[in-house]
């Protein structure tokens, strides 16, 4: 049994402790915005925040999360109330198939929380674990810069 907070809501999950957080989110809590891409920490599609740090949820066991605070894509904004980063994602028309985008947004949100004015090199360092088979990288980069600029203004 694991007690944790997800998107500010307390949850008690009863499942084998070695179950990856990814599958708890998707299959048990129906938070399907977080995606499975590789199950091996290679693609970043499953990225969420655990206590504010971006983590690959396919690599985190639920048993290790007692008392933890988890944020998923559903927790950073909604269609009616987009975060600044999500607004810039829309303005730059970043997403193509969209499947990697939850992970990209979670990774980029964490980047901007830590570094309010990232350089291209900072963006490369933070984002290169997140694969996009559609090649949305040029727009992704533009959206991160645009959001950083807006947050600074």
């Amino acid at each position, binding site marked *: 049994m694991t007690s944790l907070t997800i998107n500010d809501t307390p949850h008690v999950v009863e499942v*084998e402790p070695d179950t990856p957080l990814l599958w708890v989110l998707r299959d*048990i809590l129906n938070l399907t915005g977080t995606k499975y*891409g590789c199950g091996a920490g290679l693609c970043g599609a499953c990225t969420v925040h655990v206590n504010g740090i971006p983590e690959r949820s396919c690599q985190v066991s639920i048993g290790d999360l007692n008392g933890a605070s988890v944020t998923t894509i559903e927790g950073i904004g909604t269609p009616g109330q987009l975060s600044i980063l999500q607004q810039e994602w829309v303005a730059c028309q970043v997403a193509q198939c969209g499947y990697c985008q939850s992970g990209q947004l979670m990774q980029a949100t964490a980047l901007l929380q830590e570094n309010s004015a990232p350089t291209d090199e900072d963006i490369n360092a933070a984002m290169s674990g997140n694969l996009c088979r559609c090649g949305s990288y040029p727009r992704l980069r533009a959206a991160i810069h645009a959001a950083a600029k807006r947050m600074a203004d």
Partner: protein
Amino acid sequence: MAVGKILRRGFLIGSAAIAGGVAFGTYRYLQPFENPLDPAAGETTLNPYILITAAGVSIITPRAEMGQGIHTTLAALVAEELDLDWQQVTAIHGPPAAAYLNASAMALGLPTAEYDDRSIRRVGKGAVRVAQKLAFGIQLTGGSTSTTDAFDRMRRAGAAARMVLTQAAGKRWGIDPILLKTEAGQVIDADGRSLSYTDLAADAAQIIPPADPPLREPANWRLLGQTLPRLDMVPKVTGTARYATDIDLPDLLCASVRATPFAGGTMIGLDTNNANTLPGVRQIVSLGNGVAVVADNTWIAMKALDQVDVTWSPPAYPATTEAQMARIESAFDTRADSTLRDDGLAEVVVEAARAESLSLVEARYTVPYLAHATMEPMTATALFKGDQLTIWCGTQVPTLARDTAAAHVGLDPDQVTIITTFMGGGFGRRSETDYTTQAAQIAVALPDVPIRMTWRREEDISHDFYRPAAIARLTGAVGPGRPEAIDMAVAAPSVLAGQSNRMVGFAPPLADKLLVEGAFDQPYALPNFRVSGHAADTGIPVGVWRSVGHSYNTFFLESFLDEMAHAGELDPVAMRLALLEPEHTPSARTLESVAAMANWGQQLPEGTAQGVGFCHCFGSSVAQVVQVSDVEGQISVDHVWCAVDVGQALDPGNIEGQMESGILFGLSAAMFGQITFADGVVEQSNFHDFDSLRMDRTPLITTRILQNNLRMGGVGEVGTPPVAAALANAIFALTGQRIRDLPLANAVSFT
């Protein structure tokens, strides 16, 4: 079974129509298809593309949204003519139906050069459309055809609906409809009174729509030609877009699949005892050539697959990459399956070059098998209840997915409902039906239980319908100032034969265009030019992969042209321009444009070089220049310039996005993509050994869109073909090393 019969008979009609005699076909063609929409109480449908509800107008966009932005562009076609504001537009995929079949797609298989109107007229594009309507009736998203296919049809749907809505308003007010105008989903009279489409829909449905409503001139367009905000953007940035792997139903169970590692093989022994006892495992289902584990969650299902004890029949094909390539090479010894270009006396000139003053160039090129590796692995959700099967899936071929699944589980197609979801990438992979049929099999084995099936990434990489490995043998002769001849032979497993066999049970009796496209059909006025294709039977399943034959033939031909330019001491751009100009002006302008963008011919800094590549494909002309630099002995890919002539640019922002996407897809493959075999098994398994470009290695990309081509071309696949050759040519310019085998990373290292 029933499917096979219908399709087979259909195909024969199709062949007859291609050969001539379309009177019967023409008659049938003029009959409108039944409107497949089934409006609920209070809803009205005016034609297969328009559903009007209390909330407003929903536009049916019956092509699969794989990331290419097609829902947005198709919806804009209707909205333009119907006078909807963009904020009012909603799009839904709609049901699989004959009304939505893709009439343009079959023309792709025709042995004609697309840039050449004369050759298309000879075969008769119209005849083919009729043939396809009668025959395949396949609702396909592929071949970069969606927009060209819909361009007239969906605008007319919007225009016809606008006319009947206006007439309905005129009747209600007793005013001549000519005095009424439409705006933002309303009909408005001279005094400013207004009636909403929702209000008028039921009346409008009683009026017979015009068969051939006039369409607006492009100069008057409000939406088309503009970059529109994508309709799927907000759902995709908030995690609320639903893919087939996200469907939530009460009491749902999760499944994953492990099929034989030996393509085409079967399971000859199965022991489920170990796996059955694992906590959370509910059932193990035999699929004939594999097993599915159904469990409480996906993780348990994926893990338990390895505990199932299975014996597979051994591979019935050459079991190593070397043996595979040898099998492909041996196809050169057989008669060519397609020689779609044979101008002048290519072999004679090449022969003469051996003796005379012409420079002789000879080369052998190879490319490997490639996986699609869509970001979302193969997934589907299915429920069998009563005698009805419902499948939620991301598919490029909903009618085929329905019919194939039905045949496999012994249902009639009308007992199967396909609900097409967003898909996490397609690239051609989702034009196959293996995974949708698996979901059907599992659901039928567990009646009344919704099953959500998600493949492991390892299954996805190792159970693909691969881009074929291919070999080219080229000889060429360059005279003073210009190339005189190219004789090119290509050997590869046939995508056309493979996919047709899976769809209809036999290969079509047509020359295999896909084998040689990107070579024979290029608008080069080369006086002596022969291209022949040799289909190889390798036993490895092959399928369409973003840009199909162009993905390898463009690499072969454009690299070889570069070799010829260097042998003849010609500038690679100028040499191509001289060949394009007399044959196809828009293509010449495209190449010229990219050369100007990249400032081709300038003095580049030390350790920097450029390479060029060109292709005419899917009705568009595309040219690219790649710039590379030497960083301590490693190659850095710095910039890609791309000029593309799409004839008519409906959404420039989306076209630019598709070029970037296609270029990065092609670059990833060219730099490090390969699927190899050992002991009959695919050696790659996940993104560590089948990787793609990441953010840090993504070059700058600059795109310019041109509109000189007379007809509208496709965009989804067009960015991919030229980039491999442009990069290899740049590496040659930088290092003097000519790399003739992909991936390039086997020969050089990248930063």
